[in-house]
Structure formats: C-alpha cells, structure tokens
C-alpha cells in the first residue's frame, strides 16, 4: 500500500502533505488557554473560539489559540472554513484539485490571446483640449460679431444724425478685421478637432480589439477551468454521495445542484490534506465522525 498519499506521489518536494490512509486523518496539536489537545478531531466549542481565530491559528497567526499542523495552501482559502457563510466557486476549486492531480488544460488559444493582449497598448485619445479651443473660438467670434453689428447700427445712426462718423468707422474697420482673424482661428480649431477625431477612430478600433480579446480570454479561461474540473468530477460526485447532505451532483460541474457546504465536504474528502478544516456547521454526529468521513483533521468551533 502506498503510504505517501496521492498528492505526495504526484508532487514530490511539495509541502502539501496528505493523510497516510483514508479514514486516518493526520493528527494536529492545538494549544488553547492552558490546554494542549492532540488528535485528528479537536472540539474548541468550550473555549468559544471563532472561525476567524481558528483559521488564523491554522495559518500560524493564532493568538489565543495556536495549531501545529501542515501549512495551508490555496484550497484552504477556498474551503478551509465551512460555515453558513461559505461561498464556493466549485469550478475553480475542482480545477485546482485537477491540477494537483496532474491534469493540465490545453492553453493554446488562451496563450495566443494573452500574447496579443500583451502587445496591445492603445494610446490615449483625449480631445478635451481641442474641443475647448473650438468652443472658445466660437465664443470669441460671437462676441465680435455682436460688436460689429452694434458698430454698424451706431454708424448708421450717426450718419442719419449728420454726426462725425470717422471714429465709428475706424472702430468698425478694426472690429471687422478682428472678426476675420477670429473666424479663421475658429475654422482652424474645428479642422484640428476633425483631424483628431479621425485619429481617435483608429485608437478606438484598437481599444475595441483589446476589449474583444479580454472577453475572449475570460470565456476561454472559464471553459478551460470547467473542462479541467470535469476531469475529476466523477470522483467529486462519488464524494458528494458519501458526505452528509442532500446535493445532486449530476455529471459535470455545471450540473451540481446542492449547497456549498456539501460541495466543500466532498472536495475535502477528495484531497485529504494534512491541513485541518474548520467546521462550524452541524452536519456530523461529532468532530471525530467528521474527521473520519472527510479524511482530514477537523477543528470544530
């Protein structure tokens, strides 16, 4: 009989340890207050330890309570604490399990999508300054056009009243000349904005391409994760039927119909880590029963 456990064999040199035999979870040592408890199932309910405190202890950051055990990996983050608030991404978790069992996804297209994404660096397209110039030039032009109209009216009135018009005529000539200049500036600003808008179209094409690639990347990654998870789905379904709960596993990760705690129990039973699981739900007769069914050390809080 192989005594290294599945993971120990497939991942030599990894610190992930596994229980030697099904039904024989690794023993841990818990120190709480002045008490030391050894075993594979430790009931901390008399000490009112919270799930957070227990998880911190397993991560080696315990204060009131410390736990000597194998250090937790990514799966502990996902399902190391089973309580009412557990929210499990089953596909992702089972993909992790599959990877630990040596399965690999075919990343061909995903890799090429990521390579292209890495080469895309669309420049910014900020036309605010050019829009402001057009707006300002338009304001200047309106103000001057108004001034020209006023001066024309004044000139007419003065002529009719037989008054001296030389000053008004000069002012009008100046205003008309200035209006011509400002109008030219406004046209130039509008043309500059139009050119910038044409350039922006190319930049937006690039940004659109990037967005499509990002969507493609996400969909591919999701599909690959599902495929990867399905490699171990049969084993997961078997485990679901063994642990307490009413879930119906179906034939693939998308068909799982049940609660997250049941799924977490099944995954724990599949991986049989030496890292303990923290349980804060009433699903087992006793912590010992839980450790026995799950094959992992159990800390009951």
């Amino acid at each position: 009989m192989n005594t290294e456990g599945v993971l120990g064999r497939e991942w030599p040199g990894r610190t992930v340890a596994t229980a030697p035999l099904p039904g024989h979870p690794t023993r841990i040592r818990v120190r709480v207050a002045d008490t030391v408890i050894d075993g594979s199932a430790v009931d901390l309910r008399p000490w009112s330890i919270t799930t957070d405190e227990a998880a911190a202890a397993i991560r080696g950051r315990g204060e009131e309570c410390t736990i000597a055990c194998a250090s937790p990996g990514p799966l502990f983050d996902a399902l190391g604490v089973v309580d009412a608030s557990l929210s499990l991404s089953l596909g992702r978790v089972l993909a992790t399990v599959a990877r630990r069992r040596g399965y690999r996804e075919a990343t061909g297209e995903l890799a090429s999508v990521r390579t292209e994404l890495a080469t895309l660096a669309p420049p910014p397209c900020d036309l605010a300054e050019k829009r402001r110039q057009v707006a300002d030039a338009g304001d200047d032009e309106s103000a001057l056009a108004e001034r020209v109209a006023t001066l024309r009216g004044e000139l007419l009135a003065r002529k009719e009243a037989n008054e001296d018009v030389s000053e008004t005529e000069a002012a009008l000539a100046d205003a008309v000349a200035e209006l011509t200049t400002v109008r030219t500036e406004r046209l130039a600003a509008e043309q500059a904005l139009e050119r910038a808008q044409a350039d922006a179209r190319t930049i937006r094409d690039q940004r659109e391409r990037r967005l499509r690639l990002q969507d493609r990347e996400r969909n591919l990654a999701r599909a690959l994760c599902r495929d990867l998870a399905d490699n171990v789905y049969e084993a997961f379904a078997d485990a679901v039927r063994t642990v307490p709960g009413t879930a119906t596993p179906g034939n693939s990760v998308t068909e799982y119909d049940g609660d997250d705690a049941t799924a977490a129990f099944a995954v724990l039973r599949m991986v049989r880590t030496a890292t303990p699981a923290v349980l804060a739900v009433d699903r087992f007769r006793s912590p010992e029963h839980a450790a026995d069914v799950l094959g992992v050390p159990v800390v009951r809080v």
Partner: protein
Amino acid sequence: MILVVTYSTDARQTLRNVCTAHEGAVARRLGRATLFEETGLGAFLALRLREKHGSDVQIERTRPFNEFVAVPEGIRNAAQAYEERSSASTPYEKFQSGTAHPAPRELRGRALNDDEH
C-alpha cells in the same frame, strides 16, 4: 440624445451599473453602449463615466434623423428602388448603372443636408 460607448471591461461594467441606477435617464441600452436622454442628468452621467474611465469612454451627441429633410430625394428613391429589385443577388453598383440612381462613389462623397430647423 447622448451616445456613450465604452471600450474596456471596467468602463462597460460602470455603464451597466449607471444604467441600472438611472433607468429614467436611459433612452436605449445597446450592449456596451447606451443612449442617454439629452438632459443635464444624461450629460452628467456621461461625463462622470469619462472622468472615471478616460479614453475608454466615447461620448457623442445624436440627433433625430429626418430623411425628408436631411437626405436628397434621389438617394431616398434609390434605396426604395434597390430594395424592390427583382434579383436579390444584384449588387447596387450593377443595379444603378444606366439608371438615374446615384453611383456608390457619388453617395460616398455626398454630404447630407443640415436638418436643423
């Protein structure tokens, strides 16, 4: 109306959130783009999106399309006649040659009438 087009996943998500929160300001949702009502609120929401996501947000102003004002009669007639053609596979260029309908090159170069009243 105010057309807002997004060009990144984050900007698209913010646009979705904004549309859900301000349904009254939304005239039409079009995937990663939205037509906002032409009101101060519509403009405010559009500008907020651009403040947050910069170049990943494009804002344009649209106006109603009145073909009887903006489009020369020849173009309208050509569209109607082409859709009534007898052979579905005839390309427009072939369809119009030898007729009074405008050539594709003419259509491309033709600006529309200003339809402001």
